[in-house]
């Protein structure tokens, strides 16, 4: 059928969406990249940082031909092999992460557009002109309104369907291609994160363009139990902020305590200083069981699946406020608020309310009504021996514990009046409840922990949102040249291998060494669990500026976008590289020249997998803790065997640097001590000036000596010329270099991967 019609290519459509005619920058090669558009970049990354698989299961159970044993050379009935199946599961996790963040973002966008309209302007304050570095780079759009953020979410939704489709049986047949898709998912995840946090900042007036955000109270003991208590659990602040609004509008702000667990806590404390932060995911069950909360309001993500049951057991009322977690409850959204309150108070009904404002009103009213009738007795040390009486030392609790803790011994000792081991266990406890669940004597182990859980209040810096352009202008050069030894971001969940305050220790180590230390999410909360001799947490000790020796909390997990955003802004503000639809150039820049390292010490979730994988595609390496070996996949190099050749963008020559910097893109490290040393190493970049390299090596060497006892065994790989050697260690390093037969390395002026693989990007594009 031949009809003359106005036809638009997919490319035309993209240019229209991103307003290509609006020339804030020229449009780069990959506006709104689709599934295969950055594949060559991925393959180049994966060539150096090869997928390392640790299968969590020998089998596949995904379709009705299974189960299939994929051990060794065996393939599934569909022909898939073990590495490809692991890649498939990795992609599944990343898709789940993109979707969780993206659906949250979509919900917030829809909610705010209904409230304020599509044309509501984005304004992140006077200090943030580059408002959306990720959206600018990935899509090529400079978002000015909520409507523009909506475009970005639509881009994510449109990409997600292709990624999820790829999970189906009989799609991808290559582990490398599944990894490329996972990297693409990670990139979309970062877009979703940025959309969501920007929307929340402008929509809920969260702080922005302020570094010195308030210090808020943190800790399970901060809640005033004499008042009605509303506990919010989840990630979506629409309901929590509505609760704050309702209290303020009705002059009840001093009458009712609002506290939160997980990212919702971080969000609501960006909205109201009066809100309290109970803790990360690992404190959820513990706090719910304490019965301190009169009303529990859940919305989405990382909420225990049995919250409905646990609330009932604890005598707390429950309102589910998201379509993601309805718990089989009646949807009473259309009912009158007071009618709902009545049912909840009189018969203990739990409900689903999908309009935040109504959920807020009902929550407050119910809390006030039932608080006076509820007793909130917490267990004290004296009560412990009696509760523990029945324990017969079977150690089934040990065996069930996902953190492999010596629970049984702690309980046994506690029964004899010695609480020390119980304190140790509590500090490492992930809050899963499995010890108690399978205890044949029904010892209430989590309750026991109330007796040892510190009721102290800690100070936590509330989330500040994006890094400021002026901060970037100040630190951009030092970071790229190396004189600020690195940006280290402590992010992610609380599935820690050891004590919850290990993160605080690690952060402190780098803050005092004048790295820039950033935190987010459950890690940001964990960082506040350690007080020094003066009773200060790390947030009180160090300035909250994105500067050497600064310690910042960007906010919740969606605020992780600002961490990648900072690296991108360095490329843009310092290196004057255009961002627009210019993903490869920017990621190449970050990989080769921005000394940043992420640390997800307790990652547990699919969301964390997506965030980490997204960082990897940007060229940001991530260190993860031991539990993360269960994600099944890492991206590792072999420093001595692999090829570290890069292109020199100025001389247009290939240079064999033999320098593994960064050595891995994502690596599991066993211990905090080894992690600290590894992080320092992972901040080294080929672009370091001699001065910068000296500074970085000074830390690397000092830390390696401190924790491992000697000079680093791979030090020679990181010394290009003798000018790289830190003065303090000059003599012993020179001796060492002599011993290992070190030779000077070739000169390198502008390290880039562009030119080392097939790409649309011309080499000129990396020069600024």
């Amino acid at each position, binding site marked *: 059928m031949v009809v003359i019609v106005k036809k638009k290519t997919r490319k035309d459509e993209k240019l229209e969406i991103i307003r290509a005619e609006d020339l804030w920058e020229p449009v780069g090669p990959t506006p709104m990249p689709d599934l295969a558009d950055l594949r060559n970049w991925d393959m180049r990354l994966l060539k150096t940082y090869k997928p390392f*698989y640790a299968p969590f299961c020998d089998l596949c159970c995904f379709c009705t031909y299974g189960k299939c*044993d994929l051990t060794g050379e065996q393939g599934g009935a569909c022909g898939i092999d073990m590495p490809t199946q692991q890649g498939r599961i990795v992609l599944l996790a990343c898709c789940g992460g993109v979707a969780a963040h993206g659906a949250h973002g979509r919900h917030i966008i829809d909610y705010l557009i209904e409230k304020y309209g599509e044309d509501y302007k984005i304004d992140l304050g006077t200090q943030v002109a580059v408002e959306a570095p990720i959206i600018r780079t990935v899509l090529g759009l400079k978002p000015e309104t909520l409507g523009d953020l909506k475009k970005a979410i639509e881009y994510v939704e449109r990409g997600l369907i292709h990624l999820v489709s790829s999970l189906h049986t009989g799609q991808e047949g290559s582990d490398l291609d599944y990894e490329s898709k996972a990297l693409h998912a990670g990139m979309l995840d970062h877009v979703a994160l940025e959309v969501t946090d920007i929307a929340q900042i402008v929509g809920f007036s969260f702080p922005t363009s302020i570094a010195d955000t308030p210090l808020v109270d943190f800790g399970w003991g901060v809640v005033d139990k004499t008042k009605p208590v509303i506990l919010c659990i989840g990630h979506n602040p629409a309901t929590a902020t509505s609760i704050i609004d309702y209290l303020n509008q009705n002059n009840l702000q001093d009458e009712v305590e609002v506290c939160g667990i997980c990212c919702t806590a971080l969000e609501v404390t960006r909205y109201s200083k009066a809100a309290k932060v109970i803790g990360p995911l690992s404190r959820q069950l513990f706090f719910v069981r304490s019965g301190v909360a009169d009303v529990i309001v859940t919305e989405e993500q990382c909420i225990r699946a049995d919250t409905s049951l646990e609330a009932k057991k604890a005598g707390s009322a429950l309102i589910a406020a998201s379509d993601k977690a309805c718990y089989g409850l009646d949807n009473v959204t259309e009912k009158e608020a007071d009618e709902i309150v009545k049912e909840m108070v009189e018969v203990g009904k739990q409900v689903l309310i999908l309009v935040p404002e109504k959920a807020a009103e009902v929550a407050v009213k119910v809390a006030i009504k039932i608080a006076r009738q509820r007793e909130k007795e917490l267990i004290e040390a004296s009560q412990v021996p009696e509760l523990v009486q029945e324990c017969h030392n079977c150690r089934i609790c*040990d065996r*069930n514990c996902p953190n492999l803790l010596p629970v049984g011994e702690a309980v046994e000792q506690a029964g004899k009046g010695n609480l020390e081991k119980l304190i140790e266990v509590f500090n490492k406890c992930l809050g899963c409840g499995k010890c108690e669940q399978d205890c044949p004597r029904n010892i209430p182990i989590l309750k026991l922990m109330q007796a040892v859980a510190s009721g102290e209040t800690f100070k936590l810096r509330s989330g500040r949102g994006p890094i400021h352009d002026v901060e970037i202008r100040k630190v951009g050069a030092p970071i790229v040249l190396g004189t600020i030894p690195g940006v280290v971001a402590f992010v992610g969940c609380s599935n820690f291998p050891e004590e919850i305050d290990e993160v605080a220790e690690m952060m402190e180590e780098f803050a005092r060494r004048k790295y820039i230390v950033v935190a987010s999410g459950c890690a940001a909360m964990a960082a506040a669990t350690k007080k020094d001799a003066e009773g200060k947490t790390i947030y009180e000790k160090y300035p909250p500026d994105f500067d050497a020796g600064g310690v910042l909390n960007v906010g919740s997990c969606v605020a992780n976008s600002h961490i990648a955003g900072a690296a991108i802004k360095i490329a843009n503000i310092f290196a004057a590289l255009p961002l627009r639809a210019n993903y490869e150039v920017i990621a190449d820049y970050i990989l080769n020249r921005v000394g940043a390292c992420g640390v997800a010490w307790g990652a547990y979730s699919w969301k964390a997998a997506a965030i980490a994988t997204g960082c990897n595609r940007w060229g940001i390496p991530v260190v993860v803790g031991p539990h993360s070996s269960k994600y099944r996949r890492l991206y590792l190099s072999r420093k001595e*065997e692999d090829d570290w050749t890069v292109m020199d963008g100025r001389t247009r020559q290939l240079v064999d640097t033999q320098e593994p910097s960064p050595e891995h893109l994502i690596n*599991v490290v*066993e211990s905090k001590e080894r992690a600290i040393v590894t992080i320092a190493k992972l901040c080294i970049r080929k672009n370091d000036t001699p001065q910068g390299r000296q500074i970085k090596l000074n830390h690397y060497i000092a830390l390696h000596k401190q*924790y*491992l006892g000697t000079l680093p065994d791979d030090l020679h790989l990181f010394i290009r010329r003798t000018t790289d050697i830190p003065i303090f260690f000059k003599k012993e390093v020179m001796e060492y270099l002599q011993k290992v037969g070190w030779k000077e390395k070739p000169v390198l002026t502008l390290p880039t991967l562009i030119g080392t693989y097939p790409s649309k990007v011309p080499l000129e594009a990396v020069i600024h």
Partner: protein
Amino acid sequence: MSIPYHYVNVPTGFKTARIIEDASEYAHLIKRARRPLLLLGPLTLRISLNGRLLMEYGVDIAKAANIPVCATAHTKKKLLELGVTPESTYDIIEIINHLKDKEWRGVKKEGNHDLVMFLGFRTDLGQQGLSTLKHFAPHLRTMTLCKYYYPNAAYSLPNLKDDKWGEFLENLIANLKEKGV
């Protein structure tokens, strides 16, 4: 079916470890290996048996059979204090990443290892690392020395109480010291 001590390590598949309780059999496997390698993990710094640090047992095993050592995590420092210089300081994942390449030359550049022994790792991380080698390193066998049943190992001890475990390790060391295979 043998059940791992920590339930999170439940095996899912057919290929599971051969459980060996006899220290002399372990010793025989070690002596028969052409290029064994001992990996020491950070729990060797924390666990004590009969008043000795687990790391000291590791050192004894290495010395008794002249086995090169890879000091993972931050174990190097203590190892040096005990007078032992490890042949490698790769972290656990890194050494496994090398071991799984048939063509790798090993920690002494003499050839890849055919028997890899594990001592002092958290069981969940150990089980995952062993999974990598089980699936992707058919050229070597893995052997765990801790008191836990490791389904993903080739050779593993059963779950043991401390006293039996200490006994096993002492017997192993004694057997290794004997001449002959």
